[in-house]
């Protein structure tokens, strides 16, 4: 009827009588290409899964033992003669006795116990018996006595960690063979350990202190814990969340919905994309220069770490937020503008609620990557050895020195004692648990806010 249709149609492909039951050569090639592509895909996914399994298996097989700890249950008589030579129970005279005195007391208690039960192994000196006790114990006992001088003269049950090597022996990390080459432990001591386990003095149990204790020195890996690192990481995540979400979302909304499209916004856009690709350590240098050297904020403080991580996370969050704003169908904007909503009302009443799940997911994933960030924190001094817990946020805890989980992993992994390697893997497990929790929150929020249009 119209002049367009008469000649325009291609002619039907001549089949030359070929059967549909047989594939022609071209079809075979096309199918083979598809099969190859599927194979590549499955192979890639399998390799990633295997790698993931190997990684998780390594981490868990190395790290789970960090959550268990051997400890010794001792009956100690707090001997006033040795601990209070002046006999007046005053704080000054009590503090004159150093941890060495208390160490001798504990070591004596263990030796006495063995003598009582007739436990002995040839070639183990009383001093070597004393090495079973963590170097942490004398200080703890001393603090107990200084806090409560009435303990003098009493006989108390005192539970203490066993030293790192003995702990390692119970977990299978230290063996008779490795003890032969180890200057810190002898095979005879390990035999004694077996006897003590039989006697029920040396036991192994779940170790909550791994999650609550502060870091410890190279000499006593058994008492090192993640307490300060967990607090530091939580403080930083809180600060990053409250800084990055408003700034990131406001910037994205402005750029996506309000800003004119000209060369200035183009430049800003390109720069945001580039900033997302800047190595994180560069942000560490920036933080060191601006927040610590120029603004004179305290080093090693969660507030500085949070500021650096905020700067680092912002580009990622802005990109994710803009993507989810862009994904809101334009018909919704038209509908709102069509009934006479202002631009601002359109964005806040209609576009933002629809983009919220995407924004929240992007933000939480950005926070998760910030949680695992190590390099910038090294530069602002969060790798320092911190022995005191930061105060609560209301008492200025954000400005107190702290460390962070990934930094703790790094610093333990670089120490010489193998007990720290185990703890490093244990810290990775805690970090993974945090990340898993954040991802679950992201999924739940997504479900909660997701709406169809």
């Amino acid at each position, binding site marked *: *009827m*119209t002049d367009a249709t008469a000649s325009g149609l291609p002619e039907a492909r001549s089949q030359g009588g070929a059967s549909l039951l047989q594939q022609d050569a071209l079809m075979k090639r096309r199918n083979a290409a598809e099969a190859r592509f599927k194979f590549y895909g499955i192979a890639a996914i399998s390799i990633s899964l295997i790698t993931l399994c190997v990684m998780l298996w390594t981490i868990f097989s190395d790290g789970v033992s960090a959550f268990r700890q051997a400890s010794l249950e001792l009956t100690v008589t707090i001997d006033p003669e040795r601990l209070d030579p002046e006999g007046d129970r005053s704080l000054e005279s009590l503090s004159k006795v150093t941890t060495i005195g208390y160490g001798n007391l504990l070591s004596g208690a263990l030796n006495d116990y063995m003598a009582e039960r007739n436990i002995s192994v040839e070639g183990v000196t009383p001093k070597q018996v004393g090495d079973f006790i963590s170097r942490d114990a004398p200080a703890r006992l001393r603090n107990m006595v200084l806090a409560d001088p009435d303990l003098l003269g009493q006989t108390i049950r005192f539970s203490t960690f066993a030293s790192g090597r003995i702990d390692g022996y119970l977990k299978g990390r230290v063996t008779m063979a490795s003890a032969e080459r180890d200057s810190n432990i002898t095979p005879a001591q390990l035999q004694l350990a077996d006897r003590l386990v039989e006697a029920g003095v040396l036991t192994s149990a779940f170790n909550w202190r791994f999650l609550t204790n502060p870091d410890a020195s190279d000499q006593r890996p058994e008492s090192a814990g993640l307490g300060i690192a967990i607090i530091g990481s939580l403080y930083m995540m809180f600060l990053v969340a409250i800084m990055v979400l408003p700034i990131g979302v406001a910037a994205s909304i402005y750029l996506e919905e309000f800003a*004119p*499209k000209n060369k200035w916004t183009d430049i800003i856009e390109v720069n945001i994309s580039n900033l997302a690709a800047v190595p994180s350590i560069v942000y560490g240098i920036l933080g060191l220069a601006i927040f610590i050297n120029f603004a004179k904020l305290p080093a090693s403080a969660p507030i500085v770490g949070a500021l650096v991580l905020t700067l680092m996370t912002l580009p990622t969050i802005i990109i994710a937020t803009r993507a989810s704003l862009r994904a809101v*169908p334009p*018909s*919704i*904007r*038209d*509908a*709102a*503008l*069509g*009934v*006479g*909503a*202002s631009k601002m*009302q359109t964005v806040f*009443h*209609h576009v933002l609620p*629809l983009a919220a799940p995407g924004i929240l997911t992007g933000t939480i994933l950005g926070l998760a990557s910030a949680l695992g960030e190590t390099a910038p924190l090294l530069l602002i001094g969060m790798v320092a050895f911190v022995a005191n817990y930061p105060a609560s946020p209301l008492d200025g805890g954000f400005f107190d020195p702290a460390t962070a989980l990934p930094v703790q992993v790094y610093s333990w992994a670089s120490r010489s004692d193998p007990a720290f390697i185990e703890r490093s893997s244990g810290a990775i497990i805690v970090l993974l648990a945090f990340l898993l929790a954040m991802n679950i929150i992201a999924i739940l929020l997504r479900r909660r806010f997701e*709406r*169809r*249009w």
Partner: protein
Amino acid sequence: MNDMRIVERDVDTQKAKITARGVQVHYGTTHALKDVNVDILDNTVTAFIGPSGCGKSTFLRCLNRMNDTVASARVSGEILIDGENIYDKRVDPVQLRAKVGMVFQKPNPFPKSIYDNVAYGPKIHGMTRNKADLDEIVESALRKAALWNEAKDRLNAPGTGLSGGQQQRLCIARAIATSPEVLLMDEPCSALDPIATAQVEELIDELRASFSVVIVTHSMQQAARVSQRTAFFHLGNLVEYGETGTIFTNPTDPRTESYISGRIG
């Protein structure tokens, strides 16, 4: 020729609601609309017809300044509504759109309840003092849009859960809830089945009593059924504008005749 008219019409004495003079629209380097002059009457359904890309939707979107949201669009010339130039610098397009409502091609209810969809416009324009007033506005808008009977028991159900035709009527209810003076409809029935189309067309005819309705349509039958005046656009030009009966039965321009008889388009 009078006996060839499709519907008996009595529109010649009505006053012009919208007057367009020398309207030109450019999208970047494309000249989308060339020198359009037209008077759209009050209480009349005016249909814009023409082949795809002829500028009819562009012109419709000029009437409530929806083209402002397209960064590359430039509009010149003047469009007067009740004698006021809507492209005057002092005019806030947001205020204008409360006066000139719009229904889009694809039903686009907000992902909220039916009630909230209709109540949104009155709420943001501060048209009510209390909940009772708002309820009344919602009910009357839904009644005018012939949706009340179907929706009254499920006002809190999501608007997106309605069928396509119901959604489009919900969008019409939403547009008329702000009591506009002009209602623009951009191919409101293109996504609807014949039954829903018939309902919407009936509705358009009823709405004529209170508004000046401008409808863009690809269906010439629809234009003939619902409109009193028809404008034919071709390649950005307003080719012919007049009473619907005259345009369809006795067009003066050969291009109009070709289009109506199906030779171009």
